[in-house]
């Protein structure tokens, strides 16, 4: 699994938060109240080659755990669930023509949506990267 730096300090003190994970293997990082959502390496490996990304419209209002789209792969059409509540501000357009980016770069270019968080305290319920790794190991057994 590729390791990526999880803290990025930019001039003007905008700090990207540490990556947090759900039990459904989605991740989210936040910066200035905007969350970026993607799926974990465990998830993309389990899915296999993604052939289609079905993502919501900008402006869609999501509650935590709402279904917001699906990834179709050779394995199945797997539904995606929102880690937090908020409004969709951006969708990764490039995935329409290149759904495989999710497999190649699930933590960087393969992000799925960005959302303006309506309740940042929900982040506290999510797992840290370390806790997520432990969780994945426990379910793999």
């Amino acid at each position: 699994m590729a390791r990526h730096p999880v803290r990025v300090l930019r001039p003007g003190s905008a700090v990207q938060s540490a990556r947090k994970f759900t039990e459904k293997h989605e991740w989210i990082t936040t910066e200035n109240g905007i969350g970026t959502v993607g799926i974990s390496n465990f998830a993309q490996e389990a899915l296999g080659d993604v052939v289609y990304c079905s993502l919501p419209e900008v402006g869609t209002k999501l509650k935590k755990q709402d279904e917001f789209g699906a990834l179709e792969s050779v394995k199945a059409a797997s539904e995606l669930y929102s880690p937090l509540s908020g409004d969709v501000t951006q969708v990764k357009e490039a995935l329409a023509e290149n759904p495989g980016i999710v497999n190649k770069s699930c933590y960087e270019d393969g992000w799925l949506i960005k959302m303006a968080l309506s309740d940042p305290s929900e982040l506290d319920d999510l797992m840290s990267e370390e806790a997520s790794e432990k969780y994945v190991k426990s379910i793999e057994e």
Partner: protein
Amino acid sequence: MLTPFPVKNCFRLLCHHRVPAAGFRTPATHGLILQSISSDVYQNLAIEDWIHDHISLEGKPILFLWRNSPCVVIGRHQNPWQECNLHLMRQGGIKLARRRSGGGTVYHDMGNINLTFFTTKTKYDRMENLKIIVRALNAVQPRLDVQPTKKFDLLLDGQFKISGTASKIGRVAAYHHCTLLCSTDRTALSSLLKSPYQGIKSNATPSIPSVVKNLLDKDPALTCEVLMNAIAAEYAAHHQIDNHITLINPADETQFPGIRSKAKELQSWEWTYGWTPKFSVNTTFHVPHGQAHLPIQVSIDVKKGRIETCNIKAPDHWLPLEIGNKLNSSFIGSKFCPIEATLLTNILLRTCPDDQHLHSKWNILCEKLRGIM
């Protein structure tokens, strides 16, 4: 063994919000075999959704058997214009349905069995399910050569596809469903699954055409009824549950609260056509012009089933430019649908000069436009 069995009890035992009561009957393991009494594709797809959403499958797998009256079913992310002959379907009253699982386009009629295997996410195993079907087929006809492929098809005699697979994975549960060709109308199948539409550019997931065969053509013993019973028996043996098929009525709102609205959603234009991934149509058709034919280029972008941009290039000497422009701009926002196009163009025609020659050209143009929808 089929009985119209009041299912309230067994569903209550299996629903999420209930603590599982002391045993359904007294087998060591639990599970259910269900068969739909409906042949309506939307109701049957709705029941799949309902079971997936409402029933706890932990330690209790479910097999659902269903058949539909003639219809075409496309995968979740497919483009119906690319996959089938919508004109022929409209003429024949053949329904179009979009399912929630992935995969390709199939034709269903009462000669095709649909099998849905419901499990938890962790127990999701397509090959295990296909092997149950193969064992069942061989129990009826030991000499039958049926093998699952790596793509989870079933091949007869190493070359004919008799089953295709698709799946959906949700929050905690998953389902794997597949078809089984017993005595399907193959002429209808090949004509309906052949798209006449040209010039479509799309990111939708494509189907992979295959040569198919009916099991009944191989062996007259392999009827739908025989096979459904055989598969149920093998499923029961494998999961160590009672070999008992429970009939269910997917139209029963009391048994399945909320099922009606699920079926309605599945039948809606917004889901069936509107969920089509963005696509463009670039094609040319010809209209009579004197002794010759005039090419008319058409360039249309369709998003969520509606026309986003429209450029019908009718030359000025054939159709006045301002009328052509009016046509283009009035299509924007309308459904990419021949019925809606007809309504629109009829309304527009009334605003055109009352010139018989012009009207006849207009009608030809509109007929051609309907032809690409």
